[in-house]
């Protein structure tokens, strides 16, 4: 349910950016949803709907596109690159939940699949991110 806080940040950002860029209308907002954070898409959409009603941003709900961003990790020690989905050991529910709130604690619960190091980078697919805001002045 903290998806609401993140959805709010999307709408507030669209409003700030459209104001800054003096956009009268926003055609399209593309939001990347990083796999690592295990966002509940239904809750997130519902929260976005409510936030659109509350803030009345210059974009229609159906023009906010959500794209799932595959999570790719890279080990800083051995160079190994792997997908979060392919992590051999499934994470426990409470570990997933912790990563859901603060994706960086992945370094507490996950290891490089090749060398076992916790020293890896999240190349993509971490969390909620605005890929683009398209509109006209």
């Amino acid at each position: 349910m903290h998806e609401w806080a993140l959805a709010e940040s999307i709408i507030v950002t669209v409003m700030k950016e459209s104001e800054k860029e003096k956009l009268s209308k926003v055609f399209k907002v593309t939001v990347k949803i990083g796999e690592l954070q295990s966002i509940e898409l239904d809750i997130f959409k519902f929260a976005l709907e409510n936030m659109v009603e509350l803030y009345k941003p210059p974009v229609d709900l159906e023009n906010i596109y959500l794209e799932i961003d595959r999570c790719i990790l890279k080990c800083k020690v051995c160079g190994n690159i792997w997908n979060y989905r392919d992590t051999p050991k499934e994470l426990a529910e409470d570990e997933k939940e912790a990563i859901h709130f603060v994706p960086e604690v992945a370094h507490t619960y996950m290891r490089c699949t090749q060398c076992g190091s916790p020293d890896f980078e999240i190349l993509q697919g971490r969390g909620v991110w605005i890929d683009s805001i398209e509109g006209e002045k």
Partner: protein
Amino acid sequence: MDPRLNIINKRLGNINRIIAVSGGKGGIGKSQTAAALALYLASQNYRVGLLDLDFCGPSSHVILGIEGVSPEEDMGIIPPLVNGIRFMSITFFSGGQPSPLRGGEISNAIIEILAITRWESLDFLIVDMPPGTGDPTLDVIRLMERVEFLLVTTPSRVAREVMKKELSVLRELRIPVIGVLENMKIKKDSPAGEALAGLKVPFLGSIDFD
């Protein structure tokens, strides 16, 4: 574009004063001071929050003796009320296990926590800072618009030198510095008090070693 950066000051919007307890060096009593300050203010019936940003050596939860509580998820996360203080720490998520994070990741985690934590109305938010002037300090300066610093030091020369460096960065950026507190005083004389005489920063006094 990172949407979280635009919501942080809204989340902190109903907090009257934000005080970061810092000082450069480790082990000088920052966490001790932050916890004591938070407890004192709470005892005076102020609404107080305590945020532990020392991800490598989180200690506020140990000092406050916090166990068995966790934040509630409700359109964000609500810090639990412990000893009359709203408390938030990375340990809620790392479960006390090691979290070897690089600076950029610590920064990202701090941004996430600031973006989703609903402190609601507070008189004071006390921030327990890690040692150094790395990502957490730079992020607190960058992201928490109205932050003020309280610097801790000790009679040790090394500690004082590090504190003076942090002070000079804060000065240059015109960040309000409430003052400098000398902790762990052993001898009668107060080297920090003397050293500060020329720096035009309030000397808040000394706390004995005990």
